[in-house]
């Protein structure tokens, strides 16, 4: 027998089959979602596999030789710059320093393994002594005075000069 529904406040309860129908629809919807999810995963896996196969078949585009050489040169330059014996260079310059000479510029050439120094000396004697001191540094070789010029505007008549030295290997 069906329930008696004679309530004066509550509305009659819905029939049980209504709830069962809602439950069944919910279960069906859940099942279809599960199936759909499984299908999508399978499709995704298939697409991944296809894409992998396509990538494998496609030849790798080779870079032009010029580009590689250029990049190699850049890499070598950076490596040489990084492999300069900075500690020995700085030690040599500091050891040679005198009160009468002031260093204005220090310019290493990594590619040619050269060091160029621009400095200013009080007088000619101080300049020659400074070049001699550089020659005695073990890290440097072939020290040459390549330019010198008396500063005519300077009342003290200071001499600005440039020195070039070779950086010794393996130090």
């Amino acid at each position, binding site marked *: *027998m*069906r*329930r*008696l*529904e*004679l*309530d*004066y*406040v*509550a509305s*009659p309860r819905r029939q049980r089959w209504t709830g069962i129908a809602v439950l069944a629809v919910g279960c069906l919807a859940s099942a279809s979602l599960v199936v759909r999810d499984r299908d999508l995963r399978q499709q995704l896996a298939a697409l991944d596999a296809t894409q992998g196969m396509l990538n494998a078949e496609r030849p790798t585009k080779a870079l032009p030789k010029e580009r590689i050489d250029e990049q190699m040169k850049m890499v070598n330059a950076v490596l040489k710059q990084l492999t300069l014996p900075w500690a020995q260079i700085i030690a040599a310059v500091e050891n040679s320093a005198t009160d009468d000479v002031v260093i204005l510029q220090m310019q290493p050439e990594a590619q040619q393994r050269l060091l160029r120094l621009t400095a200013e000396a009080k007088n000619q004697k101080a300049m020659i002594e400074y070049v001699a001191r550089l020659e005695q540094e073990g890290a440097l070789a072939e020290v040459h005075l390549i330019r010198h010029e008396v500063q005519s505007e300077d009342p003290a008549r200071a001499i600005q000069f440039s020195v070039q030295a070779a950086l010794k290997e393996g130090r």
Partner: protein
Amino acid sequence: MLKQLKRNRVRIALSPGFAATAWIEGAFRPRVVKKQVLDCTLQPDAEDTGPWQGAAALLASIGTELKNTPCDVTVVLSNHFVRYTLVPENKSLSGTEEELAFARYCFGKIHGDRAKAWEVRLTGTASDPARVASAVDSGLLQAIRGCFPAGSKARLVSVQPYLMSAFNLCNEVAGKYATWLLLVEPERACLACFEGGRWAAVRNMKGDYQGPTQWAALLSRERYLAGVAEPRTNVLVHAGPAGRDKSIRVGKWKFRSLPNPTLPGVSPAEDARLAMALCAH
């Protein structure tokens, strides 16, 4: 949902002579945590309108007590306050309004103009060969609703006739056993007969029906009125102290007690007056 499960339930049986209240806690393992029976003086009811004023006053005091208690309140109306009838099938009706109007007309044929002041409810569907209808005095329903106003934390969730509570319990507990359902109260008995999935009779009678001998006499008479076949002699009885025996046989009638759901905190022997309240759910 959870909030609803957490709300405590209060079941109130409203009779002309008393109001029995059970406080129930627990969603999954419900238990009765408080019981109360308030008595009132029976008032003369010369016109059989239902002497509900005293009971309504009791309910008002219970409503005041529950005002600040969050709970769902169910009121079970004694059959003293309810009239029943069977509404025959009428295929010319369309819609709930017409069906209710027809049920009201059926009550009017039995009770006259008094039925105009009653609120009517109708169970079942239009295709049923007979449908049970109930009628309750509008004044009583207004009084009950007034006991639990909108501002109260106690929420009135159900006002149901005793027959509805007991029959729905019987449906769950007894299965196909029953043919007759007998509800016994002081000075009243309600007898419902259903067979073959259809309602055959509903009778609500004044009188003293406190023992099996009276029940048997009542059934022997009503069987002829309902036109029920002879072999149908199983009767489920929901009653107070008189109906505690599990099984009694009087002549050809086999009476079985309709048990309430077992709840911790209730003793069927000591709390007989709570039986009506506890059969609702």
